[in-house]
């Protein structure tokens, strides 16, 4: 099982094109959105645009790398029959899911760090050392939830259906979770939905830290719940996958 995890990480690092775009695109998007913003607080929040979008773009970038990367790659591996071959080994379902999540986390970590570096260097974001550390760790660990979701989607959908489905989930979660614009400026019904979405809980970890608070227990509980559901579902689907795809 550790061999598989190591091998999946090596593969992720070898895939230079995917690595490059996954790492470059979140900081680029950050500069595009928050680049011209002033330092006035966002209505209804204590944070300004530069701070808010540092967390949401780091989250968005991590989510891109792990969710889209995983779902498409897994669907392809099922089509090619590699997963069939793997099912003829003693590998438990959780081993497969763990390896895929580890590979995704390898890609998401540098993209998270780069957004934070750009925010500090270009937009002059200044925080306490513990805040930098907590935001990086929280955003990275939180990305595991979406990595597991990516594995599950890779198992639910086949072939041509994978991309539209993962895109729909990805954009839906990003928008409704307030990754593209602060939730406080969105209608109330969106805010009501958002409260229970993994994406909102995900960014809320970072924004709480930015505001000088500890991450809220409710957000952590929501993320842990989604992680269990997605990872458990993915492991179950791996074992139950009796279609050739």
């Amino acid at each position, binding site marked *: *099982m*550790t*061999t*598989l995890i190591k*091998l999946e990480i*090596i*593969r992720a690092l*070898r*895939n230079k094109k995917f690595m490059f775009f996954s790492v470059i695109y979140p900081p680029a998007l950050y500069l595009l959105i928050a680049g011209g913003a002033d330092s006035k607080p966002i209505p209804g929040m204590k944070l300004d645009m530069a701070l808010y979008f540092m967390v949401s773009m780091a989250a968005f970038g991590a989510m891109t790398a792990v969710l889209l990367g995983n779902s498409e790659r897994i669907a392809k*591996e099922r*089509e*090619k*029959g*590699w997963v*069939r*071959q*793997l*099912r*003829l*080994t*003693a*590998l438990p379902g959780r081993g497969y899911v763990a390896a895929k999540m580890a590979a995704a986390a390898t890609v998401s970590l540098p993209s998270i760090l780069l957004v934070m570096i750009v925010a500090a260097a270009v937009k002059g974001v200044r925080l306490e050392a513990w805040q930098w550390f907590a935001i990086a760790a929280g955003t990275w660990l939180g990305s595991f939830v979406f990595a597991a979701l990516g594995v599950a989607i890779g198992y639910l959908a086949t072939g041509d259906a994978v991309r539209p489905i993962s895109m729909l989930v990805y954009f839906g979660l990003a928008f409704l979770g307030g990754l593209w614009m602060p939730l406080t400026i969105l209608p109330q019904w969106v805010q009501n939905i958002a409260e229970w979405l993994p994406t909102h809980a995900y960014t809320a970890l970072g924004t709480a830290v930015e505001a000088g608070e500890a991450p809220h227990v409710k957000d952590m509980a929501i993320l842990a719940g989604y992680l269990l559901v997605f990872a458990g579902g993915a492991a179950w689907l791996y074992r139950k996958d*009796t279609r*050739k795809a």
Partner: protein
Amino acid sequence: MTTTATTTATPAQGADRAPVVSFRQVSKSYGAVRAVADLDLELYPGETVALLGPNGAGKSSTLDLLLGLRGADSGSVTLFGTTPQRAIEQGRVGAMLQSGGLMEGVKVKELVRLARDLHPRGYPLDQIMATAGITDIADRMVDKLSGGQEQRVRFALATAGAGDLIVLDEPTTGMDVSARQTFWGAMRRQAQEGRTVLFATHYLEEADEIADRVIVLHRGRVLADGTAAEIKARAGARRVAFELDGPIDREALHALPSLTSLEVSGRTVRIQSHDADATVHALYGLGLYPHHLEVSGLGLEQAFIALTTASDAAPATAEEAAR
């Protein structure tokens, strides 16, 4: 003649031992298509078994059921007295699937090491690579292999640890003649170490040369089961070939006893007969003088064709007639 009536379960050896693989009344349908129909099958330790059948006979479905990659609609499949999944988790089964892809973006060596580490009783890496004949391509990327090299890597994955049963689906597809010989050499050594080997193949000469038991599947059922010699004998027919001088009276030849087919080309006559002695005797009785008379048994390939076409010509089983 119905398909079930022709079934003879005569395991070549070890009938007194516990079966390695056991299918009991197993059925599997895909929509309206019955891929496997009430299949009964047992494999015993140390046997090398070839699974033959025309396309769509249910070979791949049978192997999928055996390996637990699909579940049966009814009946039971047991491996070593347990479920296929448990047997695989215990590392008792190695398999090489036609549809089994390889992980991309890794080196051959890395992939084989993975298979070895996932196996509860994995062999040393060098040994696996040498047995499969892939030592020279150890550092090649998996995506850059030829068809024959891919097959050898699959073989390495199937034999990465100490198992008791090896299942191979069309293992030599894409290999050239010498690679094929090397492959079967390695396979024979596996069998000599006491493993049970089950392989599906399109190459009937492979079944003839390598298997000590041949199972012919047709329409998801066992049509024949025995040694290659027994299968050939079961097909019944023998070939009679000779040359004749002067005009050939096809009518008279066609009336020969026990004749099942007649082919005349130039002066050469080829006959298939299910009683060659009677046919040849009657031939002389016609007052003919055949030159270069040859009487020979059918090859496994002809026997196979004779068996399956005879089954196709026979009235369908009740349930098939009902559809």
